[in-house]
């Protein structure tokens, strides 16, 4: 088999697997949004503070998903492994 084709195919597979990182971030963001909805239900007057706190927490949780996305983007568009074939 052509080694380049093998590396390209495996890179595509790895890119797909790397995006599995978004599962945890999605679950975490959903949990945060649910808790924020509970808090707003309990204290409707604190809506602004709760919303901004929730958005900041979600952004921090999202970072892990972004790392996975970046790994898959690098594997697809700027593959470092192809130079070693």
């Amino acid at each position, binding site marked *: 088999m052509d080694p380049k084709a093998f590396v390209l195919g495996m890179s595509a597979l790895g890119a797909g697997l790397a995006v599995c990182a978004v599962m945890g971030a999605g679950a975490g963001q959903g949990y945060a949004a649910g808790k924020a909805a509970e808090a707003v239900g309990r204290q409707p007057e604190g809506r602004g503070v709760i919303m*901004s706190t929730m*958005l*900041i927490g979600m*952004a*921090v949780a*999202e*970072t892990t998903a*972004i*790392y996975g*996305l*970046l790994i898959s*983007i690098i594997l697809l*568009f*700027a593959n470092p492994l192809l130079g070693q074939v």
Partner: protein
Amino acid sequence: MNFSNRNLWPLFRFGDETIYITDTMRGTWIIMAVLIVLAVIVRLKARRFVESPAPNSFQNLVELMVESMDQMAKSNMGQELAPLGAYFFGVFAFILISNYAGLFGFRPPTADLATTLSFALNTFFLIHFLGISRRGGKYFKDYLHPNVIFLPINIIGEIARPISLSFRLFGNILGGVIILGMLYAALPVLLRFILPDALHFYFDMFAGSLQAFIFTVLSMTFIREKAVSEEE
């Protein structure tokens, strides 16, 4: 499909490398020009701003923007560091407009790691400069916080901050650029005018303004954490 930062015109040679003007530089200059023109217009009009219960709509808009950013700086960093709101207004405006650049057909400058990393490094130096100049010895004591053993972990945590701050913004915007680019390449020409609008709304406007907001608020929170002592 090529989503990378294109080299547009060669600028000069540096050793064996040619330095190009890239998409990012062109976009950055356009956005800087827009912001400078807006600032000059506001400055010229500000002479005629009056203290009145019913200001005209332009004055109202400008005051709303400046006051909400001052309010945000004050609530996130405290009264003493509130003047930093002016700096963060500039950062927020630049990131917001460059995230919106996708709507006008440019490549957003924030889809380049160089732009976001330089903003994050600004924040990084601001955090530690303010921390050392305002708190002195207590700033260094923070690194030994629970125990001396945690010193390397605390230092790595500080280095990771600008990295996560820059990668968050970069990854969000680059993801939007790539998804929209693939959609535009897949659609027939006539459909390109209608279908991507919803995705433009989400990736450019919603995610763009959210990320600009989050970048400024997280920077402010980090500065507060290091530069404002807890006893105050």
